[in-house]
């Protein structure tokens, strides 16, 4: 299916990640099955897929938290293995370059105050104290959370928590940002705040890989869409091409057949949108 569905050719840029037939299992349950993918510098990629399609697992492999059980995954030419991540010089450099925002802020926000939360990463990387203070204040101001700095993260609203979680990673100014469902479970206003935040940070220079199943934000967050199904890539094209391919979207469980009646006549069409209007007959 992938061969049949290729979008526009992309600009040749330096390779950030190169996954070659990567597989991964959780206690014998396969999560990724021979997945191959290349990510180039400056790309904005959306990983699309239903729950359990392998999006979060792939992000964790890309962030060097899990390691492929078969196949190979390289970051800028270096194999991402457990042994490589045990070497401080490589691991700290990698953490500086690649950041992951987890889906659940409850997991990611473990410090007692918002300020401590944002300062956690720079502290681990051994930045000078003055630089940490300056960067943390600047980052908090940028996300509009300067007044929240002494608050406990778990006392914040869902939208605020998500913004702090993003700030806690962006404070390191990584080259590659991995986002796991950044707008899930947020109200529409918080969703748009998060998207605007990411757009203002990116400025076209950074590589951003976003896992999501929300098709309505696809055009805003990505220039390339990769559809996963059962741990493998089933489509890799521009967002417009992917959205136009209802067969792939339906097969990947991203849309469903919408059935209703018009003047007593049954009517069915696949649509990513529940609300729609038909022209007057």
């Amino acid at each position, binding site marked *: 299916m992938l061969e049949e569905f290729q979008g526009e050719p992309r600009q040749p840029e330096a390779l950030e990640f190169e996954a070659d037939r990567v597989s991964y299992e959780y206690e014998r349950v396969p999560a990724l099955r021979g997945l191959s993918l290349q990510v180039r510098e400056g790309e904005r990629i959306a990983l699309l897929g239903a729950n359990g399609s392998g999006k979060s697992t792939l992000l964790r492999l890309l962030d060097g938290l899990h390691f492929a059980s078969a196949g190979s995954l390289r970051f800028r030419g270096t194999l991402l293995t457990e042994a490589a991540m045990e070497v401080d010089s490589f*691991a*700290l450099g990698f*953490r500086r370059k690649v950041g992951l925002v987890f889906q659940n802020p409850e*997991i990611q926000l*473990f*410090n*007692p105050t918002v300020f401590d939360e944002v300062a*956690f990463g720079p502290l681990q990387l051994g930045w000078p104290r003055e630089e*940490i203070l300056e960067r943390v204040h600047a980052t908090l101001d940028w996300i509009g959370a300067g007044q929240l700095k002494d608050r406990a993260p778990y006392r914040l609203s869902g939208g605020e928590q998500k913004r702090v979680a993003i700030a*806690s990673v962006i404070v390191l100014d990584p080259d590659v940002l991995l986002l796991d469902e950044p707008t899930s479970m947020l109200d529409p206003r918080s969703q748009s705040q998060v998207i605007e935040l990411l757009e203002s940070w990116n400025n076209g220079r950074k590589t951003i890989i976003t896992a999501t199943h929300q098709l309505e934000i696809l055009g805003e967050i990505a220039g390339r869409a990769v559809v996963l199904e059962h741990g493998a890539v089933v489509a890799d094209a521009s967002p417009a091409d992917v959205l136009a391919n209802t067969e792939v979207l339906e097969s990947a469980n991203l849309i469903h057949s919408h059935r209703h009646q018009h003047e007593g006549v049954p009517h069915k069409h696949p649509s990513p949108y529940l609300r729609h209007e038909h022209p007057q007959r």
Partner: protein
Amino acid sequence: MSAGVMARTLRGFTRALGQTLVSEHSARESGLLQALDPRVKLVGLLALVVSAALARRLKVMVALFGLGMVLAVASRLSLWALAKRVWLVALGFTAMIAAPALFLTPGVALYRLPVGSLAITVQGARSALLLIARVESAVTLSTLLVLTTPWMHLLKALRTLLVPVEVIVLLAMTHRYVVLLTETANQMFESRQSRMVGRLSGHQQRRLMVNTGGVLLSKTLEMGNQVFLAMQARGFRGEVRLLSDFRLRGWDYLAICGFAVAAATAVVAGR
């Protein structure tokens, strides 16, 4: 214990934890103890707690308790809230432990019970009173430390006393996730309650409780794993680094002297 009792206990525990978290607010008030360097406060108040534990004279313990009250007022803490949440609870627990000593300590009878041959002795009453006074003083002084110091500052201060990093991480994570896990347990009981029709037998209730405990344990382990991954993702390599900005100022040195004099006096006078 039935599942209903367990659910009520958990709800009470969650409420109590919620109240404990209020300490983060009181720790940021502008009061006497809040203005002190956390290291000075930690060492000073711990010295007073130790002197309360060593004291053998009731007057000294009462004086330490009084000092605790004065510090509480100067730190803008509500004595009424302290009485409800700390003093009464400590009194209840200590009284239970001390009660047998009233009758079992040999000595001069102070009051003979109308039924049986049991009598409260003067020595027994004195022992019970000493124990209660000691516990109340120590608990009050420890509570002042927790209520007037942000949790993270307290952890940093503990680090300066060479408490191992592992213990600090454990305390930090426990403080954060005990609330989340208790809430999860609450929700699990509520969801079960909402789907329950009719009464469960004692056996079924016990089974439900054990199953819930097992699921909660699994969730705890899973959450622990996830949090560790989130820490690793931001460069955590096993050593916790803290942004320490503690600085001793003039009144901190004064406070050190004050705590030292009070603790030394209590130890000498309490012998």
